[in-house]
């Protein structure tokens, strides 16, 4: 029983980490129809910033994270202005290729700046908190989980309650109609992209004490973001959380009870859910802003 409870705790905590990792990717895809192939590299960029602040100035990644969020928002805004905005009207494949190019430029750029050595930031929020003799709370991941909840809640509130948030949702649902009613679509896209890159950078800072930071660690994170988003629903905030927790729970429990190949089986199981979801419920398990359909715009 203790082992099951421990696996549940691990799974939910892991889900929180995955949720904040995929949120930016999901909203960019959902609102703008852009598959951000460089997502993992933006996570790494945020993580490197946190590592740098930690290594050079001794700042805890949880303290530098808000500043990194703002900085990454600026980077996102510039990138949208210079690149994404210019290809957004083209077929989806073009923006995907552009972001693929950006991912390679970023990975190699990060290698030039930081070398290919693996890094890890140190945080005072670390180790285990004993709930009972046999059940512990992973301190870092639990902190990330609650921050993820706060960010997801904040973003959800922003999208539901503010005029700008409503404009973003309108742009996602029907771009032409949104323009007809006077929404400045370029401005909406710029803010969406900046916000999402900010959140992605923030996620990078938060995972910097948990995962290794290296220039070429991005692609597996992008793949995970892709899987969670497609499964749970494009641009859906509650979908990002729900999908990530489903994934986290599968990963954290299957390997505990299936001997030898449990970890592999967990990955197969999560992709089976993805494939089934795409076939029977293309709008995602939790309902996204749009279906996973390349022709939808």
């Amino acid at each position, binding site marked *: 029983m203790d082992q099951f409870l421990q696996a549940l705790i691990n799974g939910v905590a892991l889900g929180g980490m995955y949720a904040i990792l995929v949120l930016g990717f999901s909203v960019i895809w959902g609102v703008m129809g852009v598959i951000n192939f460089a997502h993992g590299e933006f996570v790494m960029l945020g993580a490197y910033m946190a590592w740098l602040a930690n290594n050079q100035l001794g700042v805890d990644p949880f303290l530098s994270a808000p500043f990194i969020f703002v900085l990454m928002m600026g980077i996102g805004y510039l990138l949208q202005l210079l690149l994404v905005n210019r290809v957004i009207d083209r077929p989806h494949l073009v923006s995907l290729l552009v972001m693929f190019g950006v991912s390679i430029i970023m990975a190699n750029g990060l290698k030039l700046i930081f070398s290919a050595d*693996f890094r890890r930031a*140190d945080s005072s929020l670390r180790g285990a908190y004993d709930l009972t003799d046999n059940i512990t709370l992973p301190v870092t991941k639990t902190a990330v989980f609650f921050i993820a909840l706060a960010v997801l809640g904040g973003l959800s509130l922003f999208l539901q309650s503010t005029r700008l948030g409503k404009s973003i949702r309108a742009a996602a649902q029907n771009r032409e109609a949104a323009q007809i009613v006077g929404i400045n679509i370029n401005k909406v896209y710029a803010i969406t992209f900046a916000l999402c890159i900010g959140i992605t950078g923030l996620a990078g800072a938060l995972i910097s004490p948990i995962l290794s930071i290296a220039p070429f660690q991005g692609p597996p994170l992008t793949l995970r973001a892709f899987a969670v988003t497609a499964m749970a629903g494009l641009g859906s905030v509650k979908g990002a959380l729900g999908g990530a927790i489903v994934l986290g729970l599968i990963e954290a429990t299957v390997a505990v009870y299936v001997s030898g190949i449990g970890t592999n089986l967990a990955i197969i199981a999560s992709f089976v859910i993805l494939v089934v979801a795409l076939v029977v419920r293309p709008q995602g398990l939790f309902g996204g802003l749009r279906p996973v359909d390349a022709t939808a715009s």
Partner: protein
Amino acid sequence: MLKKNPLYAIFLVLSLVAAACSGSSSEVAEGTSESDTDGTTEGSETNEQVDFDGTIKVGAALSETGKFSVEGADSRRGYDTWAQWVNTNGGIEVGDKVYDVEIIYYDDESDADTAANLTTKLIDQDKVDFLLGPYSSGLTVGASAIAEKNNVLMIEGNGTANSMFERGFKNLFLVATIASDYTKSGIEELAAGGAKTAVIAYEDTAFPTAVADGAQEHLEANGIEVLAVEKYPKDIQDVSAIMTKFRGLEPDIFVGGGHYNDAVLFVNSAKELGWDPDGMLITVGPSNPKLAEELGEDLNGVTGPTQWEATMAYEGDYFGSAAQYAEYFQEQHGQPPVYQAASATASGLALQIAIEEAGALDTDSVRTALLEMDAQTFYGPINFDERGVNTAKPMGTVQVIDGEIPVVAPEAAKIRDLEYPIAN
């Protein structure tokens, strides 16, 4: 035009990316380590005194980019160190002639197919005489098959999976200890310390699988019961499920790992679960000072295999002792050698010794000399069996103790006793 048609801009960006990442860029190092460009005069003065009769062309596909770029760079520094040493210490004697060495490098992008293609290119276009291996078993598998097909010798020290040497190849030689023996001395030492039970977790790719299979054999041979064996896919991002299960089994020691990143995950995860096994033996990572730097006290007590350390009591005619080699390497590169670099240097050195012994440059003569070799070097003894594996050199084991990484096994190489159980 760019403004009107964004496709031109995309094409331009992609072209630049393709150019930047292209594996077709080659670099030639004729004894040119980084320090050459810094102008090490001592080396070039010596170099001028020797009038070489010719150049031996050696080729290597190495990872400058991609996930093995750290180890690829270490390997390259190792190869460069050998070439630099040869070219500034009288060259290689072949009969009554003296040759210098030129190494042609290509970036294999940490990709097995690219490594194999570049090996073909080195043989067909660059007409290299010999090959040195890429980094990792995954990349060496294909590259060595190309070398075998073309009857070109490949000497390597950083691809140690057993499966590579079960193919009956005649042209592949490994100076390093083979993967299945990676954990041998460490497990023997842990068993001597009183360990009775163990768990194993490994990445299900060629090298970690060979290490884990070997570990299981060594554990059983030393009377340690294996309570569970778990495999996991590469690029894993969380191992908490595996570690939760292991914690419940209460083993004395944990044996695991695949590559550097996994060491971080295992150590982190054990701490998150409040699990402190009496011993942790992690395949890749603990011998690298950078891991100790990044993980700090969390890594304290963790043991790991090492092919080579500068403190080992090995000595040979070339480079002198292990410590002297380390000193020479430090002068060349401004940093101490990790074992991947020493393995790379030893690969070049084995080739050099075989050429000098054979007195010829043809594949058959040098192969015969390699098979007959019984040499003492800074890297340890080199004596290849019929598979091409150096069976003379035992694997060392290090333990991270208060930021230091002393060798704790085998008996002949250790500088302090294993700390077991780990004091937490």
